[in-house]
């Protein structure tokens, strides 16, 4: 099964021990905990690693968090396993001072497996290597993420605004953006 093969390939790349499911992914309980005991439960930041998720609840099978330096190797694993690139987007975690870049991959054949690769960078100077050399379709996705969040993709051939006007210098989807 492709899920097992890809998971093993990721585990070779990332630290050997599989981390516990992080506090952020816990459905429901932690919200009530926060109401009960205020500020005593602190969210642990998630460690780099690969987790197998429940497809019926979340909609994807494998979730891998990597450091920006390991990104190209992780995407090469996925490319050799014949996945197609679904989308690239960003999420602005302003309270933790980080921006997360999320890559979605999926398959064309009936051996379904959805893989999500995440990487976190600092909010003040977000730089992530580009994957356009592996997947040509990442070109527009990375330009759009740069438009919305200001993330610089190292090595991108043509990083100019895609959806905003050509002379735009604002990044709308950051949480502290005022129109």
């Amino acid at each position: 099964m492709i899920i097992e093969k890809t998971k093993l390939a990721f585990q070779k790349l990332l630290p050997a021990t599989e981390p516990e499911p992080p506090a952020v992914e816990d459905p429901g309980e932690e919200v009530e905990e926060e109401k009960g005991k205020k500020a005593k439960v602190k969210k642990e930041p998630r460690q780099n690693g690969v987790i197998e998720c429940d497809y019926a609840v979340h909609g994807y099978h494998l979730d891998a968090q990597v450091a920006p330096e390991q990104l190209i190797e992780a995407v090469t694993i996925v490319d050799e396993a014949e996945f197609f690139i679904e989308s690239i987007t960003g999420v602005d975690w302003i309270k933790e001072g980080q921006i997360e870049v999320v890559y979605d991959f999926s398959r064309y054949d009936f051996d379904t497996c959805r893989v999500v690769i995440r990487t976190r960078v600092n909010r003040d100077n977000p730089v992530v290597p580009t994957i356009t050399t592996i997947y040509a379709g990442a070109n527009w996705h990375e330009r759009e993420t740069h438009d919305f969040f200001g993330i610089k993709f190292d090595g991108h051939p043509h990083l100019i605004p895609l959806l905003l006007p050509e002379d735009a210098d604002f990044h709308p989807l950051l949480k502290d953006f005022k129109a």
Partner: protein
Amino acid sequence: MSSPIQLQTDETFVLNVGPQHPATHGVLRVKMEMNGEYIVNAETVIGYIHRMHEKMGENKTYPQYLMNLSRMDYLGALGYSHGHVLVVEKAAGIEVPERAEYIRAIMVELNRIASHLFWFGAFVMDLGGFSPLMYALQDREYILDMLEAVTGSRLTYCYFRFGGLYNDIDDDFIDAARRFIPRMRKSLIKYDKLVTGNIIFRKRLEGNALLSKETCRKYGASSAVARGSGINFDVRKNEPYSVYPDFDFDVPVYHEGDSLARYMVRMKEMEQSLRIIEQGLDKLPDGPIMPKKKPKLIKPPAGDYYQAVETARGSFGVRLVSDGTKTPYRLKLRSPTYSNMHLFDESCRGMMIMDALAFMGSLDLVIPEIDR
């Protein structure tokens, strides 16, 4: 007669197929560097209808956002609403009654046929034939009448709710749908005879604009763009959702990879949609259309959720990042036309401009979906 003109390969000019153009299906701009009639390089400029659906997703509550999905792709609006509603129901754990899911599937398939009819009319108009547009839009009016009687609007529906629907279908709708199916079958035969066998049409499309499987994979293409190149991918079969496992239908796949293959895929898809509607009407169960226990305020638990559905244009995905409050933290809409359009820049090198415009028509573009 003097000798034929030599093409100066080092002299190119830039032709701006600008935002206002009858063949670009919306506000799309393509800067083409041309050498005579051949395209050397093309760069697509988008963003002329960027309406910030993703920013609105962060400022609006979940029920307030329902209307946005119809404006994204207005031709196949119900398929997109379906994807959004499914992901929020998955996240918040809302159960949907079976009757509501069957009605949703019937409506989505009717909408798919309407969208393909409009594409068919506009595509043949691009190639120069004006009559099929009239026939196709006339057939589409029957579908819009049926949908308007139930949902209340012709184009931008706001019909699905979290947990089900807001209005049930009545016997008039079922009768009209049953009468529509044989009429549509006859129309498809008419389009076949009028258009598909036409020698000019075939010569324009056959063998032009070939797309390989590897290109489709690198760009993430879906729907007729992938199925016309031999990739058997349909989200309704690969990752079944809703009540599609109960239906018996085929997925048309053609292997040539040219514009004619993409055209044939969509024509055959319309036939399969008619089969699904027939089976849906036969198997329609009785029951309520909204669940008994529904939360008053939709607050999904914190986490990441993803749902993909097969719309008329491809695999539409919604990625919801929720932090437990009543507005989403991040709502990403993965639009299929965005990935399909992206292949145009690389694939149209070396083509003549008329073949490139036929290629663009066969990709089935709706520009507000690219720009969101």
